[in-house]
């Protein structure tokens, strides 16, 4: 008996009870659809978090001064004061011979200030830095210009401000470029406006003002010849680790210490990304596992219905055996029926999963993964074989005289 004939006979059996067959298919459909949609939701939320982290700038290594509380030379006492991040460090890091993978190093002098414009005020984080900071941290200009080298050297009282400050200080329609706002004791001219940037959670990335670090030291923090942080940007996202190593080497030699005793803390954004990635993978696997349970339940549905079918058609099995059907023919007939049910459920489930993934679910745009489709479909077929085998084997093992006598 050819496989095609087998399928034809099985389809005839399934058509004999359309409602029951469709309900069984529905069980698998829901399982496969749920796996695809939930895995897509997991992927979607992972993609959302990753794009937020990428907005931080994944090509960057943040060097933070740990002062006396960090590891390294601080413990020896005499050297503790020398562990600072200076303009000289920036110059060394931007030297392409010493640090070929470093694109830029931006100093950060930060202060929390309240900004005023006529009677309005808004609290912001002022970041004293250089022109490279904007690109390194993933900001882009909406209007006006970036900080320039001459702003830095001239200690210019200029600022590039974020959207939150604009909405806090200015009435809609006012062009903020050229306006003067008060921060600290000085008045600063707005030269650029940053485009709105996605928030990474607790801090408002738009409540910022970027100023030359020289003028920020003059007006806001006081001159200390050291920076709070350095933002080192690598040339490529896959060079971040190399850039980090170069930064460590340069800073270690500048501070006359070893890499292991470096008095700074280095935070690699890409390592943050991979941490969040693994967290999200766990989350996705968990969602997929929950959905897989419903697929399993669908499989039990197939087994249940096939057991009923085999019992109902005992007489037919008897007739087939009497006219000489070998055990294998009966086995494959009922196994084929089970697999057809799971196959139809799998196909319909993939369709439902793909359609369902077009909608936003709990605020997350699902991202369909090709492997989840293939896996869910393959598992559905495997479930058909697995759960169909017992009923089919039961049918095949019936004794013909008992089966023929069955009423």
């Amino acid at each position: 008996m050819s496989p095609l004939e087998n399928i034809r006979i099985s389809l005839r059996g399934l058509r004999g009870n359309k409602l029951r067959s469709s309900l069984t298919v529905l069980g698998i459909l829901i399982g496969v659809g749920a796996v695809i949609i939930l895995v897509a939701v997991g992927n979607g939320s992972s993609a959302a978090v990753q794009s937020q982290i990428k907005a931080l700038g994944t090509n960057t290594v943040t060097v933070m001064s740990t002062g006396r509380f960090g590891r390294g030379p601080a413990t020896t006492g005499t050297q503790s004061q020398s562990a600072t991040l200076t303009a000289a460090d920036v110059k060394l890091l931007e030297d392409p011979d010493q640090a070929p993978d470093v694109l830029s190093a931006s100093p950060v002098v930060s202060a929390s200030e309240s900004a005023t414009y006529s009677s309005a005020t808004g609290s912001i984080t002022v970041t004293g830095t250089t022109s490279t900071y904007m690109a390194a941290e993933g900001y882009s200009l909406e209007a006006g210009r970036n900080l320039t080298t001459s702003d830095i050297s001239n200690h210019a009282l200029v600022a590039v401000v974020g959207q939150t400050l604009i909405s806090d200080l200015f009435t809609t329609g006012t062009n903020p470029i050229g306006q003067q706002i008060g921060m600290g004791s000085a008045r600063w001219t707005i030269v650029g406006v940053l485009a709105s940037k996605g928030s990474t959670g607790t801090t408002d990335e738009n409540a910022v003002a970027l100023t030359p670090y020289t003028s920020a030291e003059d007006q806001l923090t006081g001159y200390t010849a050291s920076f709070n942080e350095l933002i080192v940007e690598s040339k490529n996202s896959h060079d971040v680790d190399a850039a980090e190593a170069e930064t460590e080497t340069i800073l270690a030699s500048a501070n006359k210490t070893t890499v292991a005793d470096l008095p700074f803390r280095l935070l690699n954004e890409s390592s943050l990304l991979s941490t969040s990635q693994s967290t999200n993978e766990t989350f996705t696997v968990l969602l997929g596992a929950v959905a897989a349970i419903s697929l399993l339940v669908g499989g039990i549905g197939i087994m249940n219905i096939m057991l009923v079918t085999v019992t109902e058609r005992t007489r037919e099995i008897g007739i087939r055996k009497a006219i000489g059907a070998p055990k294998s023919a009966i086995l494959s007939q009922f196994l084929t029926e089970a697999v057809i049910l799971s196959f139809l459920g799998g196909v319909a489930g993939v369709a439902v999963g793909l359609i369902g993934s077009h909608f936003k679910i709990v605020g997350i745009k699902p991202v369909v993964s090709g492997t989840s489709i293939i896996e869910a479909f393959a598992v559905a077929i495997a479930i058909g074989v697995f759960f169909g085998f017992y009923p089919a084997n039961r049918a095949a093992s019936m004794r013909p005289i008992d089966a023929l006598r069955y009423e």
Partner: protein
Amino acid sequence: MSAPEVPDAHLSAPQGALVDRSPTRPVIQLERIVRTYQMGDVLVHALRGVSLRVDRGEFVAIMGQSGSGKSTMMNILGCLDVPNRGRYLLDGVDVSKLDEATLARARNRKIGFVFQSFNLIPRTSALSNVELPMAYAGVRPRERLKRAKAALEMVGLGSRMHHMPNELSGGQQQRAAVARAIATNPSLILADEPTGNLDTQSSDDVMSIFSRLNEQGRTVVLITHEQEIADYCRRTIRLRDGRIIHDSADPEAQPYTPAGARWTT
């Protein structure tokens, strides 16, 4: 329409077993067949040592009351069941000790069944029903279709071969079942109360088909409890309490002996 002279290769008797290959070898040869069933605590003696020989081209009725053992006889003759003791040579092959898979092949190739309740596969056209045993035998679709159509023409169902069983009358269903039984060209056509569910007219139709098949040289064994049906046959065997009490072909050969007596051949 002649039956194959050489037994199917798969069904050749085990080496050393006696295979009678003479042209006159019997289709059925039962030797002291005993079949008992354990029903709860009771041991039921369904067949108590039956010996019987049916030659090629015979038309035999096996008669008996219910409980006489004729259903058991039918199951054993049809390779649906195996005896506890004794030997059954079907077309020269000892089938009394075959396993389930080989028995299935024997049923498929050597026996054509006709049942009391027609037993066509539901939701399957008459034509597909007739094709089915050939499909299990691995006959090619084209050849199968040709033979199935010929068999249906032969029983007078040529115009209704695409009907489903529930669209056919009882007599038509039984004729389709006969077509299914003869399509594989079996050594033996075995009918179990073939007219039990039919009216007189349909019974006559079906019985005349059997008579015609027999005239063409086919061996037909049917089981019945109706004398009118048995009258179509050329030989009548009566069973009672698991023993043959009368055989019209040889009235003196196997007289009824009281329980406990032994058979002598």
